[in-house]
């Protein structure tokens, strides 16, 4: 019996931890939506969605684990309601529940979804049953066909692009050897012996000297 109690405690702790993580990511997403809205780039949003869905999956995994006791077998009974504000409760629920009163408790301990949600769920279920299995399978096939076509288009475009880029690299636009000779020519005058003829330069210097006003 004591072992079971401890197991339950550990399970609840884990579940609370997972839910807190999930709540944090949801808060981040809401904050992002509010602050950046459409200006944020979509890979960012997708990343946050994938984080959230990952956290949902882990939470479900924890709940479905064989070692996890079946939580719905445990009952929660409100033994005493109190209309007075409770500071500790307010703190532990992040300012959401001011008192353990008849106003909040029925909602908090409810095990069935909202009546509205339940109605919606039922209508959808009914709609699903009404639909002819033939029509639905036809729609699925059509959808698959469209998706397949798109995949083909994308892959053929990629093939085309790849061959095109490999073809465009064929005509040479630059050569490393030419770069080397040019830079050597600039830097040292070597290799191609760029104008390695001092005689022409000497006349150059003289001409420059004669132009100088102080010499005249």
């Amino acid at each position, binding site marked *: 019996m004591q072992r079971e109690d401890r197991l339950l405690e550990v399970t609840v702790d884990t579940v609370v931890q997972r839910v807190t993580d999930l709540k944090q990511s949801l808060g981040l997403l809401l904050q992002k939506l509010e602050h950046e809205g459409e200006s944020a780039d979509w890979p960012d949003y997708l990343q946050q969605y994938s984080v959230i869905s990952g956290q949902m999956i882990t939470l479900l995994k924890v709940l479905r684990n064989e070692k996890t006791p079946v939580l719905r077998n445990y009952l929660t009974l409100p033994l005493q309601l109190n209309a007075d504000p409770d500071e500790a409760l307010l703190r532990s629920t992040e300012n959401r529940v001011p008192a353990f009163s008849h106003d909040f408790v029925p909602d908090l301990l409810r095990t069935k979804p909202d009546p509205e949600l339940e109605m919606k769920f039922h209508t959808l279920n009914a709609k699903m049953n009404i639909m002819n299995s033939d029509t639905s399978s036809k729609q699925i096939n059509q959808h698959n066909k469209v998706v397949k076509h798109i995949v083909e288009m994308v892959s053929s475009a990629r093939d085309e692009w790849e061959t095109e880029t490999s073809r465009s*690299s064929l005509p*040479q*636009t*630059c*050569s*490393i050897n*030419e*770069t*080397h*000779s*040019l*830079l*050597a*020519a*600039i*830097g*040292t*005058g070597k290799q*191609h*012996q*760029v*104008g*390695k*003829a*001092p005689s*022409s*330069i*000497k006349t*150059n*210097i003289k001409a*420059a*000297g004669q*132009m*100088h006003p102080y010499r005249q």
Partner: protein
Amino acid sequence: MSINLSVQSVLDSIESAQKNDIVPDQEFVLQGSVMDLSVSVLLSRLRGLCDNADSLPETFHDQEICFILKDFSNPGAVGPGTGGVMLRVRKALDHPELPWQLRYTGQPEVGNRPALLRNCLDVPVSSNICDFLHELGAKVDHEYVSKGYIMRKGRIKVTVFKIFKVGGKEVQEGVTKSHVVELSALTTRVDEAIATDLRIVADQLKPLVNLQNLDYRRL
């Protein structure tokens, strides 16, 4: 007296600039070449990348004479690396009214950077600079004529030019069948962020041109 004071204050501000490493005496360089046939393609791509895309690239036509000033205080030294200081004199052939330019570039700095980093000083000078260098004992090492285009992208200077040998009268022969492509940016001793910008521009020019940090002394 007042002149002395102002000279002193200029010296002070130069000194403080040097102390605080804000003198733009460094340059980042990436170099490469493009074959003559593809120059027009490169130019149109550069026009799209650089500032003032609506106007044609500015042209230049320079003559560059390289002098070597030997280190006379150490006459016994021989072998590579003791070749003395190389000083380059540039004059604009298409704008004879402009001052000439004396340019010093140092050895490339050691280290792994996105672009080659070297010391660099440019001084505008009068046309008798060659005489002056001659009197100092500098010898002409080589000279060439460069002709091409210059563009700007923010702080980055982009030049595409062809090198010609200086032959007889007006007869100029290209060294190779390619143009030199050079990206450079002046910077200070502490600011190395511009090197990444240089690399980004260079990557956008691939595979048309492959710009690298090449050290000509190792070629």
